[in-house]
Each structure stands twice: as C-alpha cells, then as structure tokens.
C-alpha cells in the first residue's frame, strides 16, 4: 500500500477510535461537569457544554444533609457479601455441573437457566413474607440472600466457558497420584479457573451494588439503606434538586470506577477466556 493509502487508513482508524471513545465517555463527562455547575446554570436553557463557573456546593450539601457514607458502606457490605457467596456457590456448582457426572446433571443445568428467565418483578411479592418469617426484614442480609439467588444462575452459565476450557490432564494426574477430590478441587482446579471466578465475582458485585427495586422494599430504616435507595430521596416529587442528583450520581459511580481500574484487566481476561473456549 502506498503511503497515502496507509495514512488514510490511519486517519479512518483514529477517527473511529475517537468516535468510540466519545460515545462511551460523553454521558460521564456530562454528569461530572453538571455536578460542578451552580444551580442557576444547571437550569439554564440552552445548557452549557463547558461550565461557566464551578462549585463544590452540591457535594457539600449532599454529604452534609444525607447519610451518604452510611448508604455507601451498606452498599459495599451487601455487594461484598453477595459476591463472596456467589463465588462459593457457583464455583462449587460449576465444578459439579461441568466436571462431574451424575443423573440429572443436564436437567439441573437447564432448570437453572430457565428459572433465570422469570420476570423479577413478581419475585418481590413472595420474597418479602419469606424474609419476614425469618425476621430478616430491614436487615441487609435479606438483600444479600436475594442477590445471590438472582445472580447465581447466570453466573453458573458464565462459568461454563471457563471451566470447560481448563484442561483435565492435571486433575487426572492428581487422581492417579491419589489426591482426594477436595484437594483436586481447591489446589488444582480453582486456581486454573481463577479468571472465570473473578469475572463472576465482579459481575455479582456490580449488580448487587446497583440494585434498586428489592433494596427499596426490603429495607426500611435509614441506617440500613443502600446507595441507590438513599439517593432516590433526591428525586423529589414536586421539585428536583439537579445539583444534588448530579453530585450524587458522580459519587455513586466513583467506587465502581476505582474498583474497575484495579480489577478491570482481570475481568476482561476472564470474559475473553470464556468467550473463546
């Protein structure tokens, strides 16, 4: 290819990349910038792309007037609890479904997926009395239990590709050497399947962190509210506090962003490994 051809390809390439970047970033830019605009500028028509003045008043007001830190800690607690349990349950189940043979294995796997399809909205109605019976209403544990249940089936499915892509030779060798099944499971298999397990953990964490519907119904007291529910208080009925909404949104986004900055690589590796078994 001549040099003109090469550079035009180059231009197209970089143009596409930048376009993609813009598409992904613009809403995040928007909310971030909005959170720093003073209220009268926020209400302006037409809106300003670049803020005319900056202020931290919304953040200040938010942190002062609401129990943001409490909500945040509750969300983290629930998200960590759920993802930990999901990892345990689904890795065990994953190994069982993909590596063991017994009657009903396939049936169970299909049932798992089938249940997942059921509209979540209605689950709410039956879960509440159940938790009430266990005295778990207004208790963050009820959210953990719910989220584990909701995300588990899909995560078993996600695990499929990772687990089946791990070569069996090592396990066979260990069996021959007389290792117990548990040893094989924990010392050999899980370390190899780590990317998949990691992907499941992150997936579960994000979902539990962001969930609103169940959290709004199962939790009553302010001290136990999770972030989405606590922040919904700013979506007032008769007026909207735009600045607070923007600042609140940014604050909600930051933890997953920071987290992802650390584990993002592994997550991608995980999904990637899974996609191409």
């Amino acid at each position, binding site marked *: 290819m001549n040099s003109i051809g090469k550079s035009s390809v180059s231009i197209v390439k970089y143009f596409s990349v930048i376009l993609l970047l813009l598409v992904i970033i613009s809403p995040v830019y928007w909310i971030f910038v909005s959170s720093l605009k003073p*209220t*009268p500028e926020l*209400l*302006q*028509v037409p809106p300003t792309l670049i803020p005319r003045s900056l202020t931290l008043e919304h953040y200040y007001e938010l942190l002062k*007037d*609401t129990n943001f830190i409490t909500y945040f800690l509750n969300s983290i607690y629930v998200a960590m609890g759920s993802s930990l349990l999901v990892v345990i349950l689904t890795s065990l189940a994953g190994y069982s479904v993909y590596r063991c043979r017994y009657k009903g294995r396939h049936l169970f796997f299909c049932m798992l997926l089938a249940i997942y399809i059921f509209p979540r909205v209605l689950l*709410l*109605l039956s879960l*509440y*009395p159940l*938790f*009430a*019976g266990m005295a778990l*209403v*207004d208790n963050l544990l009820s959210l953990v239990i719910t989220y584990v249940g909701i995300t588990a089936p899909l995560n078993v499915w996600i695990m499929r590709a990772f687990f089946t892509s791990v070569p069996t030779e090592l396990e066979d060798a260990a069996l021959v050497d007389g290792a117990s099944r548990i040893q094989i499971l924990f010392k050999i298999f899980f370390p190899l399947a780590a990317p998949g397990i990691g992907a499941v953990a992150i997936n579960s964490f994000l979902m539990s962190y962001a969930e609103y519907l169940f959290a*709004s*119904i199962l939790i*009553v*007291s*302010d001290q136990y509210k999770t972030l989405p529910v606590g922040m*919904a*208080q*700013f*979506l*007032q*009925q*008769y*007026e*909207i*506090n*735009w600045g607070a909404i923007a600042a609140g949104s940014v604050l909600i986004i930051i933890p997953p962003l920071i987290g992802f900055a650390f584990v993002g690589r592994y997550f991608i590796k995980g999904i990637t490994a899974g996609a191409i078994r």
Partner: protein
Amino acid sequence: MKRLKLLVTLASLGALCLAMAPVSLRAETVSLTLWHQEQPPRRVKRYQEVFDSFMKEYPNIKVTQHVQTWGEAYTKTMAAIRARKAPDLLFGIPEFTVNIKRSRAVQPVDEIVELLKGKYNIYNATLQPYHYEGHFWSVPLYGMNHLLYYRKSVFEAGGMDPEAPPKTWTELLSAIDRLRGAGVVQYGIGVPVSKSLAGDQFMYSLLVTNKAEHLFGERKDEIIFDNPRTVDTYKFWKKLYDTAPPGGLSWQWVEPQLALVNRQTAFGIILGGFLGHWEEQAKEKVEDLGAGFVPRPEDGQPGTIYYSNGVMLLTKDKKKREAAKTLIEYLYRPEVMGYFLNAQPGLFLPVTEEAAKANSFWEDPMVKKYAHIIKREIEQSKYGKLYGFTRDEVNPNIGRIAGQYLLAQVGQKMVIDGLSAEDAVKWGAEKMREAIK
C-alpha cells in the same frame, strides 16, 4: 457450706432484682414508629426537630421516623403489614389510606378527631376525604393545592397589569394569546399529561372549577365521569395543551416549573412547592412572582385539587394508641403545627384556622417573604376537592382508578389517538367502571 450457698443465692437473686428494676421502669416507655413519604432532607430534619421537642416534653414516649418514596410506599407498607411489621403511624393521602385500609390494618381515629374538633376549627376540606363508613380513618396534618403562577415582568412586557391575573377560562386564553402574540413568551402554559399523578392533578383542578368534580354518582358504585361538563373541561384543556411546549406527554411536576422559570411559558398551574424551587433552586426574585386562583369558567366555581395529608393509626395496642393521641394532639398545637408545616414552606398548608394564624408559621423567613402568595393559597384551599372523595361515601376501589392515572390518560387519548373530547371521556368512564367492578 450450705448456709454460704444460700447466702450467695439470695444475694444474687437480690442483685438480679435490683438490676431488673430499671428495666421495669423503662418498660413504661412507649415506642412509636412513624413512616412517611416526605423524602427531602430538609423535611426529615424539620420533622425530627418537632419529634425531639415532643420527646423532651413526654420523655416516656419515643418516636422514630422512617422515610420512603411514594413509589415504594404501597408495596412496602402492604408487605410490612403482611409480615406483621407495620409501622404504628403512617402518613398518607386519601387514596393511599383507602388502599391500605383494605388490609384491615387501618384503625378508626374518631376519638382523636372529635377531641381535636372540640379544640380547634378544622377546615372541612381536610376532613371530608377521610370520613366514610361512619368513621374517620386518618387525622389531617397538612394540605396542598394549586395556584396559577406567572411572571409579573412577562405581564408588564406584554402590556398587562401584573397584579391582575386572569380569573376566568376566557381571560386565561386571551392572556396567553396576547402574551404570545406580543412575542414575550413562546408558549402559553406548561401542561403535564404524562400517565402520572402530576397529569391527573392538573386535569382535576380544571374539572373542579367547572363543577365536574364528581367521578362517582350518589351511589358509590356509579360512575358519572362521562357528563357534559367533564367533556367541556377536556375541550378547554385541549386548547391549553395546544399552547404548551412540546413533550408534555412525559412531563410531571418539574417541567412546568422549569418552563415558567425559563420564560418559555407564561403560566403554570402548580403546587406550592414551586415557591421553594423559585427561591432556592432558580434563585429568582420574589417580586417577579405572581399568583392567582385557578381560573374558572364563567358559570363555574372557585376550585383546586386539594390533598389532605393525614396520619393513619395502624396499631391496636392501647398504650401505643394513647401515645399516638398525645403526639397528634401535640402536633395540633398552633405554634407546633406552624413550625411543623414549614418543613416545606409554601407547599404544606395549615389544616386549622388557629394554625393559619400561628406566629411560628408566619415567622419562617420563606413564608414571610412569600406571605402574600401563601395567603392566597390558604384562601384557595378552602375550595379544594379530591377526585373520588367528593361524596360522603368512598368507593374502596378508587385506588385502582387513581393508580392508572385515568384523568391524564383521557387527555393522552385526545392527544395521541386524536379522539374527540366526548369519545375520550367516554373511554375514560368505561375504564373507570371496569376498575371498580
């Protein structure tokens, strides 16, 4: 040895009794849980202050408030009732009370109401929606209604008297024409017609002014929504809609307020919360805000939608009921109520004449500033009504009609499907009949 053992046992028993004594004293404290939907932090804070001073005066009663959003309110409450974890006290509007009452958890509050009626002049509009089946089911605490808002500077720019808002439907339409014609504003009035409470509220205020406030007939299972006056109201409504900015199909409370602030529209029929928005969010000047009664047709009546917010009693426990009565009595003291109402100045209106005169109410800085408008709001509130609650008896299925936002849906039928007012109203009436079957 035996004697020593005996002594030790006795001593421990004695210590145990002593230790338990404070417990039994503490047992006199009654604990009340109260759920409400006034989420904004300033309201929660103000309520807490009121409860704190109550608890100072009555140290043996403990009041704890919990906040939820209106979106969660019904499901959460019903779920809690089913799980036997219902709150003792629950704030709500009339339709909410009817729905919760189906669970048989709501207790009559006749004795509290009678007691308060004996002491104060309670506005009838606040009590009426809670009286049916021979009992009172909630004690009114605060009310909300509409006013017609406009910018005085817009009037001036259009050559109109800024102190003379339009009073009739014809006047409103001609004012809109005039202001649009003069190029002062692009649109006439913000019309929310989303399938939401805001949409219903707007419609209903118009219906009340045209004497079409009854959904139900004399018999509570009879729908009379499809009548000529209703049809005329929707015809007028459509005229207003035609002057409104686009996008009304997804508008709720915020957009009409913003449109007025941004000078897109000349008018807005809005709840009193607008004052807070005007003053604190938009940072506009009080001098520029004008407000009049909701315009009515020549042969109509003064009117507005009116939400009487009350507190329901869900507990059957005698001690708790006594404590609740004490709390409500405390809230009704004019100076307390004045302070309580200003959890949201301008939006929450007094339910008794005495509270309407309270210093604590008028001393609030916001209220002082907007006193002339708030006075008008209170005046207008006396002509307030609420759909489904205009008769002596209430249909228990009103919740289904309200939950579907049928008043707004009728408007949508006209705008989206192009139905005539007659056909749209007929459709609405049919849906209402279906809902109460």
